[in-house]
């Protein structure tokens, strides 16, 4: 939380961390300690992550929000062992990200649904199960269960192109839920969808989270989305990518869509917006 854009942001970051330690419901699942990641490019080094420290507890729904280039996706990819940090420590479920990946500790949802076009919806959801060696009977049972969870029952034998964008993204969430990973990493999963579909999916995602007790790390660039979904919001800023604020949500866990009209919601959203503004350097605004 060092070198934030302003003093105010610094203070609120400290406060956020304090709140977090006070109210963490479960054991720490993801723990990052002074994480650095520098990409060597043709134009010189790019500091994608700089001194990122953060703890995500079991059952948390944590959103990462910030402008493009702030390292939120990179952070998620480091957790998933898709990128290697160049400095600092990170553990997932108490082990290295690589070991966690080998343990199949997490499901990852990408910005694009990325369904395999030659597989039906059911077989797409079954893909990780096939790879992980589940029996045919169990695959069948799990596919049925997860498709029901994302309200796609009846679309088992459709090919991806026969589904709308929102339904495809739901299928890709089902794919990440099909095996027993207790962490769900989501990289702007609804970024490409229109607002109405997005609202609907946000609501469904919350219901799903309540039913499954998973820990969710969620990357977004939408303030209302972050506030509506999260128990904690991590505000990040670019060049170098760093955490400028961590906001603990005071909203109840049960959130109807119209909670977004309440003063409490608007106050948190205001604080996120302030955090984003503070972290944003004005020279390139």
């Amino acid at each position, binding site marked *: 939380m060092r070198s934030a854009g302003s003093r105010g942001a610094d203070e609120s970051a400290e406060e956020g961390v304090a709140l977090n330690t006070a109210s963490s419901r479960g054991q720490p699942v993801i723990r990052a300690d002074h994480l650095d990641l520098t990409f060597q490019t043709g134009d010189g080094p790019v500091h994608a992550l700089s001194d990122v420290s953060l703890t995500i507890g079991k059952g948390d729904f944590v959103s990462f929000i910030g402008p493009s280039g702030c390292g939120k996706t990179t952070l998620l990819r480091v957790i998933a062992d898709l990128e290697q940090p160049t400095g600092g420590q990170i553990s997932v479920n108490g082990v290295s990200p690589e070991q966690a990946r080998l343990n199949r500790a997490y499901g990852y949802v*990408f910005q694009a649904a990325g369904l395999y076009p030659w597989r039906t919806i059911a077989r797409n959801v079954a893909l990780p199960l096939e790879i992980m060696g589940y029996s045919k009977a169990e695959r069948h049972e799990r596919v049925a269960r997860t498709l029901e969870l994302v309200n796609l029952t009846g679309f088992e034998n459709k*090919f991806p192109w026969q589904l709308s964008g929102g339904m495809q993204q739901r299928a890709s969430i089902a794919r990440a839920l099909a095996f027993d990973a207790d962490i769900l990493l989501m990289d702007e999963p609804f970024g490409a969808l229109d607002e109405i579909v997005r609202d609907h999916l946000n609501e469904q995602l919350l219901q799903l989270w309540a039913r499954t007790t998973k820990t969710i790390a969620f990357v977004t660039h939408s303030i209302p989305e972050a506030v509506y979904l999260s128990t904690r919001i991590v505000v990040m800023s670019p060049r170098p990518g760093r955490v400028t604020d961590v906001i603990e949500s005071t909203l109840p866990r049960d959130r109807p869509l119209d909670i977004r009209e309440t003063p409490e919601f608007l106050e948190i959203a205001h604080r996120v917006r302030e955090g984003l503004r503070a972290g944003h350097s004005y020279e390139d605004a």
Partner: protein
Amino acid sequence: MGGGKTIPILVVVAAIIGIWYAATVWLNTPWQLGVYEREGRDWTASDLIVDTMAQERPVLPSPHQVAVEIWQTTAEKKVTSKRSLVYHAWITLSATLAGFAMGTVLGVVLAVAIVHNRATDRSVMPWVIASQTIPILAIAPMIIVVLNAVGLSGLLPKALISTYLSFFPVVVGMVKGLRAPEAIQLDLMRTYSASTSQVFWKLRWPHSMPYLFASMKVAVAISLVGAIVGELPTGAVAGLGARLLAGSYYGQTVQIWSALIVAALLASVLVTLVGAAGGYVSRRMGVRP
């Protein structure tokens, strides 16, 4: 065919036949004029047109002469006769199919090795490309002669020449196809900690099917060329290549052209069959119609 393709194809065929007839008259006229002069007889334009299309050894035979020749050497001969084009076409076709099958397998195997192994990528790919810069006409007789010396003759040497030509488009197409999966699809496999062979069978292989069939269309046509070229140095024993060579020895242009047309028809049938197989596979794989 169908889907509104029939009419355009018929128009093109009609245009080709029209141009062919015009060229027949034009190319055969000088010789026909010589005949008239020697015989000292009068001739009209219609005589000339009719006669240029009925020469025994024309520079360019007319389409109907070729059609009659093809009819006589296919439908009116027993298929076991050495004068039957069906017999010769089968000889060439068997070598083509054997070479095509071997070439496709070789091409796929090389592509898999190239995609999965950096050393193979660096060491084999340049040779694959270099192999195709050697003119097949130069190397074919040597393959035939060398294999004959070690006791191999008949179908296999010709099939090997087909293999030599047909593996190339398959390697190039499949290297491209196996590398075509997007980063996100490969990342997904990594998040599942999938093994290399799982990534291959569940992602790379199905993803490369359109590339495979596109390459196989080129490969099957080029296999036929390879088999025909392979028949030329054998002393014109059997096959469409032998018919071409024998025809040119004896100035039998009608025979040459009928062998050429049969070869072309064979090639288009083979390409169509591969295309149909590709269409069947992509329908099974749920490609949007």
